[in-house]
């Protein structure tokens, strides 16, 4: 039991530590593809450190919600980390606290506070960003539900560990047509939820065109650092679920031994690298969509996931 508890903590630490790295790698890769040199892959760590040491300026209109939101944004991905297989193929202590559906609700909690806090400063840009973020979120939700349906049908569970286990052991279902479709849809949702191109440009700095970033426009110092870190972790966690649960359920530790765990960390990093490459390719080849075209993008995702569901029902 103690070992598992420690492993759980270790998973949390892995997510905390490596999530800025994922962001750094993506930025660097993107720069390379665009024939630039780009910042160091450690740049996000420097940013965070710098921000943590800065003083904060807060809008006179802001209330405690504004100050609480960064903490929530930071805590929520970590909470989800407790539920998913990051390193181990066997369940860890806190895994019973929520399944994928519950995890979805928990992530929503972060979104709720982030969007609410954006309205707290009275700045219209924050409020605008909040409204747009909500739009992306509610469009993504039915897709997620479809995904959960297919996963629960194919794997017979919605608990990430058990899903992972089912596919790892069975091996068969990864190549189910419905599964493939659902994987694509889920990936599109990840892009939308984490504010990547083609839904949103994470590197853009034009207020009127921003969706996700404009929520945190009014933040500075520690709060901003926590929000940024939370954002990195959210991407990392979602990618972990994507990789470890849905696409590549292999390479996780099956025993509590140091080599197995090291191997698991390495394989995770490898998977993340693959994910980063995928994201970078998409971000470099596609353009950002107009705001209301996002609905079409997510609509496409929905149709794909629905197709997955239908293919399952008709038994292909």
């Amino acid at each position, binding site marked *: 039991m103690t070992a598992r508890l420690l492993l759980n903590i270790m998973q949390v630490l892995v997510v905390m530590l490596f999530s800025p790295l994922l962001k750094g790698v993506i930025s660097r890769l993107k720069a390379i593809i665009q024939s630039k040199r780009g910042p160091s892959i450690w740049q996000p760590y420097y940013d965070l*450190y710098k921000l*943590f*040491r800065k*003083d*904060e*300026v*807060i*809008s*006179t*209109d802001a*209330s*405690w*919600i504004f100050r609480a939101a*960064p*903490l929530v944004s*930071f*805590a929520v991905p*970590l*909470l989800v980390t407790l539920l998913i297989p990051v390193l181990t193929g066997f369940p*860890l202590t*806190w*895994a*019973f*606290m*929520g*399944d994928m*559906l*519950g995890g979805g*609700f928990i992530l*929503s*909690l972060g*979104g*709720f506070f982030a*969007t*609410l806090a954006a*309205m*707290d*400063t*009275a700045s219209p840009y924050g*409020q605008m960003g*909040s*409204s747009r973020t*909500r*739009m992306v*979120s*509610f469009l993504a*939700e*039915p897709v*997620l*539900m479809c995904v959960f*349906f297919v996963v*629960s049908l194919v794997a017979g*569970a*919605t608990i990430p560990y*058990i899903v992972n286990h089912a596919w790892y052991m069975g091996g068969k279902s990864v190549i189910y047509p419905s599964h493939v479709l659902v994987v694509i849809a889920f990936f599109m949702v990840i892009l939308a939820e984490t504010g990547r191109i083609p839904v949103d440009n994470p590197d853009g700095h034009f207020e009127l065109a921003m969706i996700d970033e404009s929520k945190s426009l009014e933040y500075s*110092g*520690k709060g901003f650092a926590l929000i940024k870190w939370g954002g990195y972790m959210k991407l990392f966690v979602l990618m972990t679920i994507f990789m470890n649960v849905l696409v590549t359920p292999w390479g996780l530790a099956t025993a509590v031994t140091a080599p197995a765990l090291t191997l698991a960390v390495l394989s995770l990093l490898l998977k993340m690298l693959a994910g980063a490459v995928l994201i970078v390719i998409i971000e470099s080849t596609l353009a950002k969509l107009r*705001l*209301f075209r996002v609905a079409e993008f997510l609509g496409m995702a929905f149709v794909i996931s629905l197709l997955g*569901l239908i293919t399952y029902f008709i038994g292909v």
Partner: protein
Amino acid sequence: MTGQTWLLIMTAVSLLGALLMAVVTGGRAAVVVSMGAAVLASLFGLAGAVTLALAGSGVFLAAAVLPPLGTLLLRPDGLSLLFFVLTMLIWLFISIFSLDYLQKFIPRYNVRGFGALYNILFLALAVTTLAGDLVTFLIAWEVMTALSYLLIVFEHRNPETTKAGFFMLVMSETGSVLLIAAFIMLRIHTGHFDFAGIAAAAASLPAAVKNAVFILALLGFGVKVGIVPLYGWFPPAYAAAPANVAAVLSGVTLSLGVYGLCRVILDLPGAAPLWWGLVLLVLGALTAILGILYALMEQNLKRMLSLSSVENTGLILVGLGAAMVYRTGGLYVLAALAAITALYHTINHAVYKTLLFLGAGAVEFATGRQDMDGLGGLSRTMPYTTLFFLVGSLSIAALPPFNGFVSEWLTLQTLLLSFHLPDVLPRVVMAAAGVILALTAALAITCFVKACGTTFLGRARRPEAARAREAGPCMKLGMALPAVACLLLGVLPTLVIPRLNGPASILAGGTAAQQMVPAVFSQPEKFKDLVMLGGGFLRGILPAPGAVVVPTDPGFSSISPTYLLVALPLMLLLGAALARIFGGRTVQEKGPVWAGGEERFDPAQQYTGTAYSNPVLVLFGSIYRPRVDLVRHYHAQNNFRLATGYQRQIYSPAERYLYRPAVWLLYKGAGLLSWIQSGRVNQYVAYMLLLLAGALIYAVW
């Protein structure tokens, strides 16, 4: 003391509270006496319910003879008592709140009348839940409708209010007419009005009668709970009613509508054909999505909240529909799971919607406004109200660790478990319902972010909002209690679900609490899957069988809000600690927000609620189909055009395609007959001649 005694005292206190209104002078005294009586009565009622529940279900309370309809019975079973307790609880919250809230009416309206009606309404509600036969239920139901009508139109000097009340009354009565038809059909074909007799004879009901009863009862109760084409009275009536009455409507009478549905279409007729459940599922999903979509378009707090009640009705209906489908399929455990889910959600909705309406009432009390676009910035002047409203919003948005999360998660799990069903059709329907509910949940978050954000955050848009003062102590207490209840219901589902097991078994024909709340702590070997997941963690510290909720199969899914409540603060602390460790001590400064280059930030620069929900309008425009009118303003004297503008109006499809044509048809039809009374005496005599001639011919034919 026995339960009967407690309930007698409750009745006496409540009646006294009503009767004293005839004697007391002065508004303040009237408020204190009547609401004090209501508080006491609900406490006595709670005591009575607890005593009765401990004594076991099927208690006989009282009977009266009302010829020729037969005996009127008060004989609650587990389901009745559950709703009785819920009523008492909500009543307690609202009455405490009203002690302060009603003060606002004192100089202008007759609060003594309010006090009297309020206390009698309480009795009607109590009798509705405790009734043991259809006539008692119907009488109490109708009295409840009439009294809630009178309370809705309490501010009767406003024509809008009385019009809204009329709308409500007519729709409710139309529903009651359908109910009467359903009840009479049950009576005729079973020979009984009492629940026990009907349930016993239900097996012999012809299928056609059962179907008719189902449809009639669904539509009849549908008016009260607001299923999709019948919710039309919700927005105007809730907006017109005083906030505490709106809370009663949403927290209590809507719940009693759910009770009626449970009773008449799940309990009494027994086995149901598959399509009943499917109808409920489809209707529920539609109700949920349309309800929240229309809620998003509202800028008036109370109208928005009422439409969000429609959404929640949809969720409850989906739960009930799932229970029905599972029951028909013989999956009694799953049916019980679905029934527990629906009941749980009913309770949750009652609690958080009460909280939200009371919050809206506090805002109205402080600012006199209900429109979000005129409010803002209340978080600084009304911090407690803001906190409570936020709790309510988190609950209704189904976010952990509050109560909405548990029941909504359970609802979706119930739908996910549809793979146990052998048929494809119900599985497809349930999957579709699940997808729609997911969208609904996300839209609900949007809706309440908007409501909280525009009302309480940012900067005050109108002077009234800037001048607001925090609510009084009773109002605060009245909101704090349901807020605490939201949290408790959210983090201790393992204590709630076993209580719902009995009532749910009445609806589902099976039980599920055993599976849903496994006793991991006491029998870990029996729940290996769960223990493998870590379910036995922190054994013995938490006061629950296992503090884990499992929709029947621990290998499929589980949640534990109780543990989440432990883990969430840990993570928050972790974040705070990291910030402190890495950053050391830093300073927080206050600064004005950037005004876009202007010298001073004008509150009108902020986003309004309308703007906030505009993406929804754009995306779902084909559903809203807003009508855009060109409005030209002219100078009164010389026809000089002052301004041209666009006015966008959204009519609900129910209003456009159902109510208006219905009323038009009614008047058209009546107009067609108006020649009958033309005023000509010759014509009148001619009727008699023609009738006579006809009679003669008919008689000798």
